[in-house]
């Protein structure tokens, strides 16, 4: 069975990528299972999706714990612990990262046990206005890497899944998918199907007797205030608002009041400051600023050291 995981951010098309790939497998005669996994979903938040494909009906369910192939939409996710990109990897795992940084460099940085392949984002995906949409690139690359999906299967797969988006979207995505497929030809077939877990040689669960604890501990109460500050929602941001203080008229309230995440603080001298640990990059401040003193830059791909921003 092929067990494949897609990691990206809400809005990058990971659910679509899983749908496209499973459709291609299905057209090649495979049984499939695909699903997205996310919590209270928001654009920009890390999500993942998975595909299982096998010649036999699939009985396994739930998140993939022994991945044969992992595709990463955007290299800034690698260092985001809540994305869980590297969970359960082993020496058989192939990891494909959309990144300008070559695969060998990533392999060295991450001390990764399996194979890493870097794939630069296509011009089409990069030109996307907000979050780069990389579903077609992920699908094309995955189809190339597993080695059992023919190039000509991608078109009917995309057509079936994307019909409602119209001909031009299909054509654009097909071009991206085919170019990713072709780029993977040197590695075609390097992803091997994983076997079944043995009922003899396995790690038993570390079960415990869950202890009785009184309600001062065991009620689901959050006693501490403002704990949400500990969640760095700034990691969800793909665009960064910046304040041009030479144009800011120190009105003291418009941007900070409209910010839905209370991520703009105002000094006593009326100067606003953006809290980039928590700003999600929604750009409402940019839209409402009366003197247009807020502008936008794209977030840069992952800084490798020292993380959060």
């Amino acid at each position, binding site marked *: 069975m092929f067990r494949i995981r897609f990691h990206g951010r809400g809005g990058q098309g990971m659910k679509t990528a899983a*749908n496209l790939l499973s459709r291609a497998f299905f057209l090649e005669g495979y049984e499939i299972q695909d699903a997205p996994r996310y919590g209270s979903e928001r654009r920009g938040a890390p999500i993942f999706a998975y595909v299982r494909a096998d010649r036999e009906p699939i009985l396994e369910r739930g998140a993939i714990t022994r991945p044969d192939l992992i595709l990463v939409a955007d290299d800034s996710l690698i260092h985001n612990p809540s994305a869980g990109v590297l969970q359960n990897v082993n020496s058989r795992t192939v990891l494909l990262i959309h990144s300008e940084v070559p695969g060998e460099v990533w392999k060295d940085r991450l001390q990764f046990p399996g194979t890493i392949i870097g794939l630069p984002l296509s011009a089409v995906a990069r030109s996307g206005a907000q979050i780069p949409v990389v579903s077609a690139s992920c699908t094309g690359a995955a189809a190339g890497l597993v080695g059992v999906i023919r190039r000509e299967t991608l078109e009917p797969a995309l057509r079936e899944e994307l019909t409602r988006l119209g001909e031009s979207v299909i054509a654009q995505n097909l071009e991206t998918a085919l170019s990713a497929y072709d780029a993977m030809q040197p590695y075609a077939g390097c992803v091997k199907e994983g076997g079944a877990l043995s009922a003899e040689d396995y790690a038993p669960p*570390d079960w415990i007797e869950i202890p009785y604890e009184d309600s001062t501990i065991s009620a689901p109460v959050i006693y501490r205030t403002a704990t949400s500050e500990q969640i760095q929602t700034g990691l969800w941001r793909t665009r960064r608002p910046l304040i041009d203080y030479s144009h800011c008229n120190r009105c003291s309230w418009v941007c900070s009041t409209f910010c839905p995440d209370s991520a703009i603080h105002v000094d006593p001298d009326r100067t606003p400051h953006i809290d980039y640990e928590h700003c999600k990059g929604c750009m409402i401040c940019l839209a409402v600023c009366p003197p247009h003193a807020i502008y936008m830059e794209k977030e840069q791909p992952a800084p490798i050291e020292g993380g959060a921003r």
Partner: protein
Amino acid sequence: MRRTLLTGNGAAAWGARLAEADYVPAFPITPQTEIIEALAGWSERGEMAGRVVTLDSEHSMLTAAAAAAATGVRVFTATSSQGLLYGMEMIYTAPGWRAPFVMVNVSRALASPITLEADHNDILAARDSGFLQIHCATCQEVLDSVLMAYRLAEHPQVRLPAIVNLDGFYLSFTREPVVIPDQEQVRRFLPPFDPGNVAFRADRPASQAALVLGGSLYSYFRYEAHLATLQALTAYEEVAQAFEREMGRRYPAVEAYRAEDAEYIFFLMGAYATKAKDAVNRLRERGMRIGVVRPRLLRPYPARILQELLRGRRAVAVIDQNLSMGMGGILYSELASALYGMKDAPMLVSYIGGLGGRDISTEELFTMAAQTREAADAGVTPEPRLLYTAAELREVRKMQTIAGSKLPGHMEGKNDE
């Protein structure tokens, strides 16, 4: 007939569409919303003749469903979790009207604390309502069960509403290959509803479900509803045979997988049953004679079938994806009551797990199989086990520390400030 890829929610919507439901009162809730989105889209584009109407709550939705059913039209609706509970007054009221309709429930665990992921405490809260209940393990089964549920609910000897249950996320948002039958094929299996006396009209007023005092009248109607529910056991067999003749797929009231010669059995319902089948295949490679028994029909309860299937086994690992506070697993206690006093009854070992969407890993299933065999060898029934790992408890400690719980020193997580 067309074989394509559908989510469990997509399969449920296709079931309602192919059943040619006339009326769909709806209210959205995660993880059920896609079902009514699909139906609303088809209705809007004229691909489905039935009318989709959004109501102001699940209570109104169920009232509308039952009232429409009482006029003799075919009604479909869907809900989940907190929505099911919000409509609970009508869940218990509707069956007494003896007007059939089908509702899909997408299982999601109940508050508190609140979550979005699956377990079966929501659907089991409707256990004693008089609704028939069919539980699904695959997306194909969801589509097929909606069709079967109509024929069962509308059966002249039954005339009760039915719930088809599927697990949130594990089925609702998971795509699998599904055969969508042709409309003509479905019409042969499920002809238009012949409502008979279920035909309320404004110009022929009748009083639906009257007030009865004194107990005797009340008891009569309740006993009759119970007896009608039991009729559904026989009717189910007829429906399953007709379905197999038309569609070629067989759905017994209780599914038995590799159970013919099995000494040990995993007993559970819902989507995790396929995981148990996978574990059975692996365990059989290592020589263990083990199988899966899965009740599809939970109401009426197929007690006799379970007695026949489980007689003479050494032991059964009952896996409850639910928890009755202060008692334990609901499937376990129901199975124990069905087998009590039976000659050659197997030992029952109780496991509680999968609450709020927690995974039950293949390794855990292997361990349950091993423990169940050891318990049978020793002849001593172990205490019920609440599946939980040391790693999970460590994660809880971290969260409690962040939340400011006053943990004793030895319990504190690494993230304490």
